[in-house]
């Protein structure tokens, strides 16, 4: 038995690999040539090999509600998501444009606030921002960059347009899975990698290291870089440890660090204190420094903000960078790009209605059964209303929430996000997916080649978050012009 493409039933969504005529798109041809040559039993055997490898390598993520069972194997689909190099290059340019503008925006907000004075960005949005940190006013970090690592979620609608769904500027995760997925695929399908031109992804840890090292306040060849993790019970702990390992950085917890009277940050080592130059923090602002933010935080380091303000340590992302990671701020990004760069956005935003404006709110309330409503500051797919799938009482509850706090909500049309063939019980079935590339900025800009493709493994589901039943695929950027 072979994997038959003619049995593949596309739904109304755009399919990343198969065109409307049921034929593989150009970038996916080599893949399907290959799949056409192996039979289903062979594929199943390889799928089992992947599962075994995932178990053995201990690629896991943590689910908060699982109680004692703290990690789960990472659900992985072995049919890759494929994109042509030409399309990817346009997207890459768009991602870099976006992060450049966002960093100019954040720096402006904490300093002159020109964009507010010029009435491009409303003061009331700034005032209502939960992630604006008073403690960061008047600071300009190195290179004027606040968000050094950005995970941008992209989706493709029915007509093939790629949109930015959100910008994750706080502590975006997932890049380790992108790297591990590629390792798994190379173990499994070495033949395809030989036969076609799939661009490599594995320079990310080096790029990340260089991005971080550039933030070192000391002029030294080998700055001490530390990844600050909340610890083993955090859902992304695997990734923290993985990145530290790949970068040759120290993996530290808050209790390993101490800020001394000289405003420098030190690690506690077996031979005494050792200075830390750059901290890649994977904990939220709120928990970063109990002296500056939440006093009950046991995860952070007392005095860390003091050290950062004194310029004695680099922190990525900078405290306060999350101000631009807000679904209401998101709606202004096209204007932000225009304002700072005098350019049109290369990748468009999903059209959005802001509930803070009376007319837009009325539209949202009148069309709750068609729209997706999102709170401004949640991530991981929490606290959302998917109108067409919600019950009447859920919609009523949301209408009340919106009226109570309009600034906190925005709405978008329900997109029919694209699909790709996914292996389900030995045959291919369409499953919805998104793409999270990671963009780095300090002394220079860098984007991952492709990114992490997250796929909703349940039939018909549009939710790709790993915490809610999502899995992932390897992402191939394929050079077809040779």
């Amino acid at each position, binding site marked *: 038995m072979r994997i038959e493409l003619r049995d593949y039933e596309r739904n109304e969504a755009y399919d990343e690999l198969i065109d409307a005529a049921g034929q593989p798109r150009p970038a996916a041809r080599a893949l399907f040539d290959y799949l056409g040559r192996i039979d289903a039993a062979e594929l199943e055997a390889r799928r089992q090999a992947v599962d075994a490898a995932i178990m053995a390598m201990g690629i896991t993520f943590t689910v908060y509600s699982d109680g004692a069972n703290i990690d789960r194997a990472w659900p992985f689909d072995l049919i890759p998501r494929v994109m042509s190099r030409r399309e990817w290059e346009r997207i890459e340019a768009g991602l870099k444009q976006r992060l450049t503008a966002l960093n100019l925006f954040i720096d402006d907000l904490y300093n002159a606030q020109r964009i507010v004075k010029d009435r491009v960005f409303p003061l009331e949005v700034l005032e209502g921002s939960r992630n604006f940190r008073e403690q960061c006013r008047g600071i300009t970090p190195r290179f004027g960059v606040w968000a050094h690592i950005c995970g941008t979620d992209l989706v493709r609608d029915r007509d093939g347009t790629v949109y930015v769904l959100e910008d994750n500027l706080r502590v975006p995760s997932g890049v380790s899975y992108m790297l591990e997925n590629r390792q798994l695929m190379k173990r499994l399908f070495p033949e395809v990698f030989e036969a076609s031109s799939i661009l490599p992804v594995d320079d990310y840890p080096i790029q990340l290291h260089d991005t971080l090292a550039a933030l070192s306040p000391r002029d030294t060849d080998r700055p001490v870089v530390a990844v600050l993790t909340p610890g083993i019970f955090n859902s992304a702990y695997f990734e923290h440890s993985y990145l530290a390992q790949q970068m040759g950085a120290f993996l530290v917890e*808050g209790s*390993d660090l101490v800020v001394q009277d000289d405003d420098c940050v030190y690690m506690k080592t*077996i031979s005494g*204190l050792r200075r830390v130059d750059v901290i890649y923090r994977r904990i939220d602002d709120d928990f970063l420094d109990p002296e500056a933010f939440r006093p009950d935080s046991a995860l952070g380091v007392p005095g860390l903000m003091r050290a950062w303000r004194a310029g004695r340590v680099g922190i990525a992302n900078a405290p306060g960078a999350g101000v631009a990671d807000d679904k209401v701020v998101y709606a202004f990004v096209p204007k932000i790009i225009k304002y700072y760069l005098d350019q049109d956005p290369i990748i468009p935003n999903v059209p959005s209605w802001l509930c803070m404006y009376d007319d837009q709110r009325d539209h949202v309330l009148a069309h709750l059964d068609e729209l997706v409503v999102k709170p401004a500051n949640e991530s991981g797919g929490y606290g959302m209303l998917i109108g067409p799938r919600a019950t009447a009482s859920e919609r009523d509850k949301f209408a009340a929430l919106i009226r109570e706090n309009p600034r906190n909500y925005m709405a978008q049309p329900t997109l029919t996000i694209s699909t790709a063939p996914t292996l389900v019980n030995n045959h291919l079935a369409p499953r919805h997916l998104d793409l999270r590339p990671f963009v780095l900025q300090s002394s220079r800009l860098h984007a991952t080649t492709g990114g992490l493709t997250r796929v909703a493994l349940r039939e018909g589901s549009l939710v790709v978050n790993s915490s809610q039943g999502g899995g992932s695929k390897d992402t191939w950027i394929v050079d077809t012009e040779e």
Partner: protein
Amino acid sequence: MLSRVAESLYWMARYLERAENTARLINSTTQVLLDLPRGASFGWDVLIKVAGLDALYHQHHTELDEHHIMRFLIQDERNPSAIVSCIGYARENSRTFREVLPMEFWERINALHLYIQRNAAKTTLGRTERYQVLNEIILRRQSIVGLLMGSMSHDIAYQFIKLGRNIERADMTTRILDVNSAVLLPRDSAASGPALERLWMGTLTGLSAYQMYRRHVGVHVRGREVADFLLRDPHFPRSVNHCLGEIETCLSVLPRQATCIQASRQAWRRLESTQLKEMAPVVLHEYLDQIQADLGVIHDTIARQYFHLHQNLPQPAGQTTNPSTQSQS
């Protein structure tokens, strides 16, 4: 090296050593029982006692039979020294320092963890199944030690692994030696002479020491000579003397090690100077207790010097210790 990482490495090694030695303790005891003469008696609860777990055991159980005691020692997660718990803690600890170990280490320890998770229940099916599963654990654990010896730089991180392994190993050797004190042989000395010899042979076999004993001590297995070999032989890797030597070698490359070396020498001097004049169980037991106490002092000194060095510095509010690095000693 971060103090926290050094501590985790140390405990990871101790937990793995403890898991292996508990498996050895159970297997050797089971073998010994097969050879007991008519009229001899044995209480399984001695395993709980020598492991220092009797108080905890009695919190959860009243029965002192083989079945309950084996479950408690092998698969009861309420027992932090159960084989399942030790391997679980070792794996959790090693998640916190994957970056300092060879890449395959994680795959192997993860595989060991999955193996015991899947097979722990089998150990209750019968002594044969139990022997096989425990033997597999010993085997896999040895392959992990081999991996570290052969592919990890013998750097500071390695020293902490070796320290943990040797302190735990010395401690467990004294505990395994202590088990025979629980066997009561019949008074008839014609029967008890050879039986006693077989008992001590069992102890040596459990520690993979029989062949080396024969080679370096002699063919006759006498309690006093076995104890002397397992405690004072300078070359056998599971003897307390050898472990103390290894501990001192590790310490000598660590920074500011003077007080730790002092503690280690103190233990060594006591080991050397005490003459075992009689092998009465009570005397041996007290002697072993003293060695365990000396090892405890070495542990405390290392903990103070390297793990909790900075405790006088301001700490984040509400800081708690990692639950997976709790101490038994």
